[in-house]
């Protein structure tokens, strides 16, 4: 089989709010000093899901990692290669910049079609920067494939994808014919840490780069030009909360003082 993992490089979500800055003139995030961009964590989990299926099958299943982004996104691709993926493709083109979920999915779907023999696409449930959670669904629609979102378990065998999805009040198990798309959630489990030797091997692997020309895409249909959602404003909301730390010589005294505040605020 041939699996694709979609991987996105994002600003480190562990950046403390105090270091989080926005340039309101360009509606973009100012990279925080001392924080390197990282692989979106849900994409690492999607890669783990693909790797476990390959290992369980014990066959020559190939895993290709796709990332749309700048040259720096090579690092995200190399991380998934170090985990055990076989090949990497960077979708890099100025024409891809500023794209919304639809424009991004258009590029990813074109790349998947170009690869040609893909059986399943694994995405994170959402990118941990914009948190839209729709690229996987849009890739599936663009390809005309079935899709299962927010999976905590994925199996692929005998032409069928079986997923267990996390719902608001429980879980459901679905079967769908492949080729199909799945988006994987944190309930799946932790992604593996590559060993040093795997990191060194991945560093030596060549990542193929593709542009809109390679994919046969019209620049007017991708990036900012192809976007249907217009970001009008990005800003840090004003916080008007000033915490009042409750004093007291003992925990009992602190607890009484806190409850007195809650009583005064009519919470009882």
């Amino acid at each position, binding site marked *: 089989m041939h699996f694709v993992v979609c991987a996105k490089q994002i600003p480190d979500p562990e950046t403390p709010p105090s270091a989080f800055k926005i340039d309101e003139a360009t509606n973009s995030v100012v990279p925080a000093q001392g924080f390197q961009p990282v692989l979106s964590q849900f994409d690492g989990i999607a890669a783990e899901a693909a790797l476990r299926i390959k290992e369980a099958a014990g066959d020559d299943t190939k895993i290709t990692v796709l990332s749309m982004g700048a040259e720096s996104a090579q690092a995200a691709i190399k991380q998934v290669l170090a985990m055990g993926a076989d090949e990497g493709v960077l979708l890099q083109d100025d024409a891809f910049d500023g794209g919304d979920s639809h424009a991004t999915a258009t590029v990813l779907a074109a790349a998947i079609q170009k690869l040609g023999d893909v059986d399943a696409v694994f995405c994170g449930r959402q990118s941990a920067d914009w948190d839209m959670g729709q690229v996987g669904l849009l890739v599936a629609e663009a390809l005309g494939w079935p899709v299962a979102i927010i999976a905590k378990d994925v199996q692929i065998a005998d032409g069928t994808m079986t997923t267990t999805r*996390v719902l608001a009040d429980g879980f459901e198990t679905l079967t769908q014919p492949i080729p199909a798309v799945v988006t994987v959630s944190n309930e799946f489990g932790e992604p593996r840490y590559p060993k040093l030797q795997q990191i060194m091997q991945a560093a030596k692997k060549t990542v193929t780069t593709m542009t809109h020309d390679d994919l046969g895409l019209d620049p007017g249909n991708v990036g900012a030009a192809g976007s249907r959602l217009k*970001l009008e404003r990005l800003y840090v909301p004003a916080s008007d909360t000033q915490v009042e730390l409750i004093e007291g010589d003992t925990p009992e005294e602190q607890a009484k003082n806190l409850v007195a505040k809650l009583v005064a605020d009519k919470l009882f």
Partner: protein
Amino acid sequence: MARNILVVGELVEGALSPTTAELLGQSTRLVDGGSVAVSLMGSGASGAASSAFEAGADKAFTNDDSSYDQYNSDHWVNAVEAALDGVDAVLVAQSSVGRDIAPRLAARQNTAAAMDCINVTDDSGTLKVTRPAYGGNALAEYSFAASPAVATVRAKAFEVIEPRSGASGATVELPAAGESRTTIQGRELAEAVGLSITEAPVVVSGGRGLGGPEGFEQVEALAAAFGTSRAAVGSSRAACDLGWYPVSQQVGLTGKVVTPDLYVAVAISGASQHMAGCSGSKMIIAINKDPDANIFQNSKYGIVGDYKAVLPALIEAVKAVS
């Protein structure tokens, strides 16, 4: 300018879901002379239409086919597409249904969806949506370059309208469920722990700082002190991922969004993805031994201290006034 809005409705045991009523309420404020429609699918759909009319709908697209009771993506997408004629905007709850159907409907209509919105407004005739990004560190405001605009909206983002008692409207039959590439093999309900965290007026949540699943016994005892008919127990994603508490109780961007009168965060650092799930609470209080924990930036009151010492005292103090 008049605009027509379709709300993709959801039923809970045959009745209109609270968020569906909220979306209908906001739609009446946005249509500007246009009409509000609702789609209702599954057992009880045509019966629930009267509640939808009272909540603001002018027209209901319904089908009582029990095949729609369990959400099947292909079935629902195909049916709702039949209700989109002349529609300028589609509103859906940010629910298990909304997360799936909104992007697919947008793709089918060659338009875009904005997910997890906290506001939908009219700005001089242009529909705009606001949603958190970067784990709640930022707010993003969007307009749409294609029509219909599709948006999923958080629960409790909008007020319902005063019920229009006795209101009625046109009803149109949606097609029955057709083919689907997806077979639902089974569903299981998650272990429910007391009151629903999205409904309870008080939510007491525990995080990674509890140090282990046994820490939740104290968190549960504090909730019980507020009253079992009043308080529910939540958990941070870290604590759920560690297997300390059921996923159904997870508060945060990838869990549930809660808006209680009082949110008590015990040993939770307050990562922005957690705050995205509780920042709509009327009051947040935090108990954490790290005075620099981000949770204090978002809290009205805080106690800096080890929960193992603070909680037993707080449980007694709360019991004394409950």
